C-alpha cells in the first residue's frame, strides 16, 4: 500500500543542502526580538518547529539589511549589524540539532512602512507612495543603489557566518526589489526603469552581489509573488516572465511563491489568506511559476493540513509546501502526520487574529488555538501534577475544553459539565456565519482530544453549586461563558423587533425586509449577522459609533469581509450610535457631532454590544472549594484567544 504522504515525506535537494521533507515554515515576523536581535524567545519558538519535524525553516521575516529599511514597527531582526552574528550562531545550532535546514530572509522594505520611528526617510525607485502606508518615499540615486546592493551582500555574509544554510531575498509583499519590478511604482527613466530589463536590473545586481559574497556552497533563494492582485501591478503573466529570467540567470536556488502583495489592503489580506479563502488557494500561481523555472518551488497559501499538502505536491503545484500558520497552530504537525495521527493535529483554521493580525499591529504573535506560541520557555513542556486531584470544569466551550484537556494531560481526574447537548459553546454560533465554518476547527480538535483523554463529559447537565460539590472536587474551574449584552438604552430591551447578532445566526429573526445592524462590539459579530441577512435577500445597513464598521477586525480579515458585504449590497455608516427606540422610531446620534436623526424605515434591528458574563455559578461557588478559577468569558467577556490562554494558564496551576 502506498504511503499516504509519499511526496510530503520524501527528501529534496536545494543546491548542496538536503531537506528531509517538504514541509516549510516560511519567513514571518514574530515581534519576539530584543533590541533587534533574535534572542531566546525567538529561538525557543523555532526550536519547537525543529523538534516537531519540519524540514526547512526560513526564519526572520523582513529582517533589515540596512537602517533605511523600516524595522522598528514590527521589531524585525536587524541584519545590518555584526552584533547579530552570535545570536544567529546559537539559533542555527539549535535548529541543526533536530535535523532542520535553516535559512534567513533578508530584505529592504523600501517605501513599505513609516519613518516615524527611525526618523530616516523611506526610499523607493520613484516618489510614489504605497497605498497601504501612504508615505511618499525619497528617490534612490545611483550611489544610494550601490550602497543598498552592498548592504544586501553584507547581510547575506552575516547570515552565512551565523551558521545558517542559506539566505532568502524577499522580492514579495512589494519590498524594494519588487518595487523596482512594479510598473505601477517604478517610473524611472534611467537604466533602472523603463522596460522589464531595466526594472529588473536592481534585483539582478543584488542577486549577483549576494552570490559573489556567499560563494557556491550556500543557498540563495528568492520570495516572489505569483500575482500581486494590484491594479496595474505584477500579474501572473509578468511574474512568470520575471521568474523565467531569474531562473535562466542561474544564481537563485529556489522560488518561494506567494499570492498578493503588501501594497494595498485587499492584496495584503490575500498574502496570508484567512478562512475567507479556500485551502491552497494560490497553488495555481506556484504551479505556473514551476512550469517556467528549473529550481524547486515552494507553494504557499492556506496549506493547513498534510493531506492538502500532499495533494499540492502530487499535482505538481510546488516541490515544497509552506505550512507556516499550520506549524504555528501545531509545531508537531510533521511528526503527527508521519505517525498517522491526523486527528491529533491541531489544524490551523485561518482565523489570523492571533498571528499575522497581531504582527501588523506590532505586538508579539500568538495563536488563538495554541497558547504556547510565544511562551515556549514557560509552557512548551507540560509536566505531570505532583498530586492527582479531582477537577470539575463547568462549561463545554473552548475555555472549558482547553482547561479540561490541560488538567487531564497533567494527570488529574476531570469531570466536565455542559448544560447543552453538544460541546463547543459560542463556537457553535460563530461557525454558522457565512465563510466562518472553519471557526469550528478549534472546537472539533478540543472535543476529540478530551474524549480521547478520557475526560468524564456530562452533556445536558446544567451544573448547580450542589452538583459541583457532590463531586468532592479538589479544584473547580468555571467557564460558563457569556450572553449578548443588552445595554440600558431606552426602549431596547422591550423592542419587539430588536434581536442580538447571535440570535440572527441562530435563525431567530423577526419578519421584515429592512434591517439596521448596530455594530458596537467592533468585531465580526455584526458583519457576520449582516451577511447572514444579506444572503436571505434582505436590505441591510450597518451603523457604528466607531470610525469604521468592524473597527477591530484584523487587517487580513477586514478586506474580504468588506468585499463580500459591499458585493452583496450592504450599506455602512460610521460614527452613529443608537440613542433610543420609541414607538417604532429609532433615534441615532452622531458620535462626534451630537446631532440626532430619526429612522422609521426599519423592520428588524440587530444589535451587537459584546457579551455579558454568565457568572452566577462562579460567584456562588467562590469560597466553597479550596481551589477555584473563573476563566474565559464568564470572568470577563473577551475573545476566543483570551479564553484559550486563560484556561490553559489556570489549568496548569491546578
Amino acid at each position, binding site marked *: *500500500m502506498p*504511503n*499516504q*504522504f*509519499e*511526496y510530503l515525506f*520524501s*527528501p529534496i535537494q536545494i543546491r548542496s543542502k538536503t531537506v528531509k521533507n517538504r514541509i516549510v515554515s516560511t519567513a514571518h515576523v514574530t515581534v519576539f526580538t530584543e533590541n533587534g536581535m533574535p534572542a531566546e524567545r525567538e529561538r525557543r519558538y523555532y526550536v519547537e518547529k525543529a523538534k516537531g519535524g519540519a524540514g526547512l525553516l526560513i526564519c526572520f521575516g523582513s529582517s533589515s539589511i540596512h537602517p533605511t529599511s523600516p524595522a522598528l514597527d514590527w521589531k524585525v531582526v536587524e541584519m545590518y549589524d555584526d552584533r547579530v552574528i552570535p545570536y544567529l550562531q546559537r539559533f542555527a545550532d539549535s535548529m541543526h540539532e533536530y535535523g532542520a535546514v535553516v535559512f534567513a530572509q533578508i530584505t529592504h522594505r523600501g517605501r513599505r512602512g513609516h519613518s516615524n520611528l527611525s526618523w530616516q526617510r523611506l526610499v523607493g525607485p520613484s516618489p510614489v507612495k504605497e497605498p497601504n502606508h501612504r508615505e511618499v518615499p525619497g528617490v534612490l540615486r545611483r550611489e544610494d543603489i550601490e550602497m543598498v546592493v552592498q548592504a544586501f551582500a553584507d547581510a547575506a555574509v552575516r547570515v552565512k557566518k551565523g551558521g545558517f544554510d542559506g539566505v532568502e531575498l524577499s522580492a514579495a509583499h512589494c519590498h524594494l526589489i519588487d518595487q523596482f519590478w512594479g510598473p505601477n511604482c517604478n517610473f524611472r527613466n534611467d537604466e533602472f526603469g523603463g522596460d522589464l530589463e531595466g526594472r529588473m536590473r536592481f534585483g539582478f545586481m543584488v542577486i549577483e552581489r549576494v552570490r559573489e559574497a556567499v560563494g557556491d556552497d550556500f543557498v540563495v533563494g528568492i520570495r516572489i509573488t505569483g*500575482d*500581486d*492582485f*494590484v*491594479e496595474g*501591478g505584477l*500579474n*501572473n*503573466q509578468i511574474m512568470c516572465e520575471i521568474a523565467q529570467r531569474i531562473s535562466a540567470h542561474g544564481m537563485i536556488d529556489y522560488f518561494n511563491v506567494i*499570492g*498578493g502583495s503588501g501594497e494595498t489592503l*485587499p*492584496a495584503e489580506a*490575500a498574502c496570508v489568506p484567512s478562512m*475567507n*479563502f*479556500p485551502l491552497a*488557494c*494560490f*497553488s*495555481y*500561481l506556484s*504551479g*505556473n511559476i*514551476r*512550469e517556467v523555472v528549473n529550481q524547486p518551488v515552494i507553494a504557499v497559501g492556506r496549506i493547513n493540513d498534510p493531506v492538502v499538502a500532499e495533494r499540492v*505536491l*502530487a*499535482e*505538481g*503545484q510546488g*516541490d515544497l509546501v509552506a505550512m507556516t500558520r499550520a506549524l504555528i497552530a501545531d509545531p508537531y504537525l510533521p511528526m503527527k502526520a508521519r505517525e*498517522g495521527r491526523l486527528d491529533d493535529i491541531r489544524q490551523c483554521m485561518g482565523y489570523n487574529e492571533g498571528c499575522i493580525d497581531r504582527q501588523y499591529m506590532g505586538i508579539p504573535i500568538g495563536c488563538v488555538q495554541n497558547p504556547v506560541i510565544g511562551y515556549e520557555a514557560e509552557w512548551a513542556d507540560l509536566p505531570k501534577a505532583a498530586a492527582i486531584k479531582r477537577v470539575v470544569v463547568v462549561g463545554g466551550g473552548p475555555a472549558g475544553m482547553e482547561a479540561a484537556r490541560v488538567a487531564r494531560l497533567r494527570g488529574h481526574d476531570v469531570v466536565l459539565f455542559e448544560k447543552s447537548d453538544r460541546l463547543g459553546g459560542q463556537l457553535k454560533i460563530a461557525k454558522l456565519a457565512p465563510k466562518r465554518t472553519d471557526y469550528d476547527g478549534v472546537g472539533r480538535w478540543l472535543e476529540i482530544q478530551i474524549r480521547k483523554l478520557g475526560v468524564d463529559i456530562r452533556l445536558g447537565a446544567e451544573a448547580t453549586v450542589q452538583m459541583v460539590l457532590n463531586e468532592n472536587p479538589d479544584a473547580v474551574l468555571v467557564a460558563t461563558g457569556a450572553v449578548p449584552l443588552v445595554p440600558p438604552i431606552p426602549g431596547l430591551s422591550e423592542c419587539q423587533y430588536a434581536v442580538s447578532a447571535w440570535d440572527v445566526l441562530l435563525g431567530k429573526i423577526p419578519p421584515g425586509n429592512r434591517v439596521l445592524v448596530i455594530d458596537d462590539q467592533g468585531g465580526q459579530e455584526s458583519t457576520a449577522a449582516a451577511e447572514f441577512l444579506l444572503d436571505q435577500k434582505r436590505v441591510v445597513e450597518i451603523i457604528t459609533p466607531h470610525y469604521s464598521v468592524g473597527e477591530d477586525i484584523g487587517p487580513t480579515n477586514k478586506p*474580504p469581509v468588506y*468585499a*463580500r458585504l459591499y*458585493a452583496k449590497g450592504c450599506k455602512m455608516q460610521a460614527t452613529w450610535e443608537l440613542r433610543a427606540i420609541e414607538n417604532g422610531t429609532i433615534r441615532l446620534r452622531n458620535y462626534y457631532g451630537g446631532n440626532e436623526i430619526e429612522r422609521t424605515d426599519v423592520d428588524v434591528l440587530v444589535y451587537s454590544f459584546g457579551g455579558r458574563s454568565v457568572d452566577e455559578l462562579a460567584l456562588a461557588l467562590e469560597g466553597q472549594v479550596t481551589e477555584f478559577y473563573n476563566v474565559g468569558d464568564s470572568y470577563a467577556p473577551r475573545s476566543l484567544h483570551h479564553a484559550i490562554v486563560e484556561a490553559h494558564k489556570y489549568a496548569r496551576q491546578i
Partner: protein
Amino acid sequence: MKLAVCVKEVLDSRLPLQVFPDSGQIVQLGTEPIKLINPADRAALEIALNIRSQQPGSRVEVFSVCDAVQEGALYFALARGADVVERLAPIAEHIGPPSTALLLAARMSGAKFDLICCGDETLDNSSAMVGPLIAELLDLPQVTSAGRLRECSKGKLIVERKLDRGHGELVEVELPAVLTFKVEAAESQYVSFRRLEQARGKDIPVWHADLDLPARKLPQWPSSEKKLPPRARVKKKFMPDASLSAAERVKMIMAGGMQPQQSGQNSAVLEGNPDYLSEQLFRFLKHHEFI
C-alpha cells in the same frame, strides 16, 4: 476451452488494519486474521465458470502463488466448482508481483490455456502488475480493467473495458489471451458452508518451480532503499482570467473559482415525474463527466 484463473488470498480490508508505511506490511488488528479470496480474483473465477457452463467440455484450473497457510482462496475456488486447483510454492527470493508473475507464467507456459483470467488488482497491495506481467512473459495479448464479457467463441472474445469517469469501450481480442477483470465484472455466487468444508477436506497439489528459473528476468522490485517519488507534473488548475481586474481576480479566488452566480445564468429548474428527473440528472452528470 481450457481456462486458467489466478487467485490470491487477502486480508479482509473492511476490518481494522494497520499499515506500516516504510515496509508496506499490513496487519489486521484483532485476534485471528480474517481472510478472503481477493474480490477481483473472485470475479475472474466467476467469468471462467460462466464460460465453462456455456461451452461444454471446458475446464477451469485455478492457481495461487502462496505458502501453505494461505490456501484459503484455492479452497474457495474448489468449493465454487473449479476443476483443478494448484498451489505454486514461492521461490526463496520471492520479491512481490514480478516473481509471482514469473512463477505463474512458468507454470502455464506450454499448458496451452485458451484464456487466462486474473483480477485486475488486489485489496492489499493493488499493484495491478501480475496479470500484465504474465501476458508479457507468455507473449500473449492482454486486456486490462475488463468488465462483462459480451461474446465468447472459440477463437476470440468481445469484452467491455472500464475507463475513467464512467466511460467504457468494447474490445475484441483473439485467443489465447490474458484478461484482468474488475471486481464488478461478475456477480459472485453464494458458496455453501458444506461445500467449503468438503473442499477443506481435500489435499491441494503443490507445484515447485524448476530452480533455474531465469533469474535474470526478475526485475528489481521492491528495492530495500526508499524510492523517491517522481518529479510531479504540473496539473493545470483553475485560474482567473488575466483580463479581469485585480479585485475581480481576488473575488474569484475567494469564491473557490466560481463565477459569482447570476440568477438564471448557470442554473435550470427542472419539473416532471421522478423518472424524467432522474434521467435528466443522469444525463447532466454524464455530460459533465461527473460519472
